[in-house]
């Protein structure tokens, strides 16, 4: 009887551990993708706006030494 309960508990704990690991990896993956993101179709308008600012001379390469 106790053996069976022990087995079930081990299985449950093992499943919880694996579940937590998968959740944690996925959470970190999402955070990483929020931090580093590729520019794609979703960013097309903002990219075009920035490129236009450069082409029109509205934005110039930064020439100062520091931002402060």
């Amino acid at each position, binding site marked *: 009887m106790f053996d069976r309960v022990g087995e079930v508990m081990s299985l449950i704990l093992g499943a919880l551990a694996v579940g937590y690991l998968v959740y944690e990896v996925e959470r*970190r993956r999402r955070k*990483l993708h929020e931090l580093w993101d590729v520019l794609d179709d979703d960013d097309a308008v903002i*990219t*075009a706006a920035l490129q236009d600012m450069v082409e029109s001379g509205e934005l*110039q390469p930064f020439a100062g030494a520091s931002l402060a």
Partner: protein
Amino acid sequence: MAKSSRGPGSGRRRADLREEASAPAGGDVNLASPSGQAAHSAGAGPANAPRFRIFIVDCGWNSPARRVLLDNFSLIRELQQDDPIYVLSREKSIDLARRYGSRIGRDPILAVHDMAALERDGTTGFHGFRLSLGLLRTPQQALLGLQSFVRFLVTHRRSPDLEADIRANLRREGLMGAIDIMMQHESRDLVSDV
């Protein structure tokens, strides 16, 4: 993120997007006079044309990430001399944030436009990447993020497939994260054994 819908319409779409985005963003750009870098336009020729255009969008949140960026900007410029850096004024940054609300709180954002991809496919599909530095909450994290950013730019300037490199890097980071989690568990186990 499926990115490669490249087709005959991409050039027309790019022109449309340019028209769409041509409205003035408002606010003056608070910049010093242009340097010699300005001569390196994307169409200047493949030999000496910059591979990237780097844009810094910063609304001015009083955050550790912003302080780290300000403290290290001159070093970033020295390390990244081959590609022009465009710093948007606070007014322009706020204007962009207002238009694209989901970006609020992520700045300073360092957006990198891959000129090779832009010239090939326009803004359709992959055309660069960005680091949302403002998401990093501690100075140490922000500094590490900034260092990774510059390292990636310097080591991948001549990459024939930047998108693949970025995805491979993210996969590797994800894998390292998984290993890190397991190692932390292991170290906790070790501690609990003592």
